[in-house]
């Protein structure tokens, strides 16, 4: 150990950690608690502890409204967008880092700058383009949009990652008789796995959470993604808090599990990619 931690330091650390945990967990706790209350109790009996605990909201959500379909849609869209985006981004990042050609730096910068475009600006023109490509009201239309929006940042992070891997390793592989593709596949890809995972997690979350475009481009209830389905629980001027919070809990859980499992890679990938980038 670097230096001894004194008892008073320990007390300080853990007090701060507990405070932090409270700040993080209280809103989450309240969300879960409300999702277990009856509509009447939510309004008439405000409380911090559960009153008349019920699973009615969840039953309504999954049985009457078939929320599974929405979760499935979100999973399909997010997984597909992530896969294609990471594939395209790693191709681009490899090209921009390892190959030499005209305007390389300019193209790299332009790709990054597209990330700066405010999405509110793209809303109307995009609806025209998506319709002309015959992609409105389809899940692959959303996949196309999400993978494109995520690609610049992914490319940028992966560029940083690839730069950190000594080019000699690949050269060695190619001297040994491998093709460029084999060098990429056998050397670069495994070495940059944490970076790939980090980028995948970012893309997945962004696609899982996106609200505005899903709202605009998907019209059939059977194709709605989770955030859109939750927003439809607000009918006209009624906020059904119980149902909304049940939907919120159900939609946050898959991503939270994903994050918990992938956290080590996220941390490593981000560190390596951005620090060396």
């Amino acid at each position, binding site marked *: 150990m670097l230096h001894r931690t004194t008892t008073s330091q320990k007390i300080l650390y853990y007090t701060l950690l507990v405070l932090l945990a409270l700040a993080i967990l209280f809103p989450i706790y309240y969300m879960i608690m409300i999702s277990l209350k009856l509509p009447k109790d939510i*309004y008439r009996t*405000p409380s911090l502890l559960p009153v008349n605990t019920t699973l009615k909201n969840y039953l309504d959500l999954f049985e009457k409204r078939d929320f599974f379909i929405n979760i499935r849609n979100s999973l399909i869209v997010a997984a597909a967008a992530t896969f294609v985006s990471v594939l395209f981004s790693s191709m681009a990042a490899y090209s921009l880092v390892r190959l030499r050609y005209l305007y390389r730096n300019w193209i790299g910068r332009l790709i990054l700058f597209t990330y700066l475009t405010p999405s509110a600006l793209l809303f109307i023109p995009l609806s025209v383009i998506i319709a002309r490509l015959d992609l409105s009201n389809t899940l692959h239309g959303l996949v196309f949009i999400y993978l494109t929006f995520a690609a610049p940042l992914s490319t940028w992070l992966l560029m940083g990652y690839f730069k950190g891997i000594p080019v000699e390793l690949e050269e060695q592989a190619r001297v040994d008789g491998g093709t460029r593709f084999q060098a990429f596949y056998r050397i670069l890809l495994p070495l940059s796995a944490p970076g790939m995972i980090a980028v995948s997690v970012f893309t997945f979350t962004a696609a899982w959470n996106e609200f505005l475009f899903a709202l605009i481009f998907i*019209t059939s209830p059977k194709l709605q993604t989770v955030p859109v389905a939750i927003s439809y629980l607000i009918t*006209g001027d009624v*906020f059904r808090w119980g149902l909304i919070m049940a939907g919120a809990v159900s939609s946050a859980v898959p991503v939270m599990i994903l994050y918990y499992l992938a956290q080590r890679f996220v941390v490593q990938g981000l560190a390596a990619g951005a620090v060396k980038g």
Partner: protein
Amino acid sequence: MIFSEEANDAVVERIEEWGAMKGVDVEVVMINENETVQRISAAIEAGTMPDAFDLGVDFALLLSQTGQLQALDDLYQQIGDAHGGWLDAMDAILASTDFGGAIYGIPYAASGINVLYRRVDVLEPVGEADAPATWQEIAVNSAAGQDPPSHYGMGFALSNVGDANLTTTMLQSWGGRIADDAGTTCTLDSPETRAFLEWITGAFADGLFPPGVTTWDGGGDNTAYQSGNALFIANPGSVYLNIRENDPELLEATRFSGLPAGPAMHIVPVTAKLRGIPASTSPEKTELAKDLFAFLAEDEFMEQYMSAAIYGPALDSQLEFAVFNESPVHIGLADAALNGTPGTFPDVDNAALAEYQTNFLTPRMIQRIVVDNLSIDDSIAETQAACQAIYDKHNQ
């Protein structure tokens, strides 16, 4: 689109029944009313409009101006004749000069009607059990009955949401006008507007509004009433449906009445929910859509629909429905549909006024005073300028 799921389901079922009868494949898509404009805008730009759709009068005005809707005069006449004629309010609403003399939508219900809810269990003990006849009376009753922070009097939104445009109605009840009779010049800057603002900002300063009214969302009044935090609210009936389902005790303690009058006028706005056919629909499908509209207007179905929905009648024959003679809220809705003031009366209903309303200029004028501490004169001057800019834009 409609606040009642039961009513929505009934329409979908009816349309599917019609589809089966005609051998036509139909897809019914329900969209959230708050998002209609975004969704339809994207669809128009993209050329993916449905063959027929529901819309409000304001939106129909905007769309008809860019030639997005088909004229349906014949069908309007036909359906009217088959059901004892349209209510006067429907004729008046569709006669707006901005429609250019044609009918671009078939009304299926009188909407936008607010009914006043009041908590008699609290108001009776303080001797204010009767329905208030004027807006000023509501303020007086509120002051007598309220007991902050447990409950406040006037549960009317003053935020940037559609509900808050009720304040435009109040303003008109005070004799204020948004624009002149030609519908081209903004006339907000008037002694009547000033008097109204003095009253409402005074009530705010006296603490008669529940906390949060300046940022309430569309469900603010609903939440406040259901949590017992407001004694009075004005609502089209969704709150009624909600408390009927969830809170019988509260329903027991609630009485309904029509919107009260102001010092100058008694304004009870009635607008209409329309069904329209986009210009992009093929002639063949247009005929089908017209047939569907007539099918949906049949009394047998409408009676079932109206008892689940929270709208007023649009056709004479609908006045006979049991629900309009039995349910307290629906009696109020029917009464307003018959005797209310059409559309934006006394102001001219045109695209400029619609934009004035979608920009929530009246509630914002009030917020400028109660939130930003502007003087009444400054707020009127600022809003008058913003209003005139909108009217100028539409008169170019």
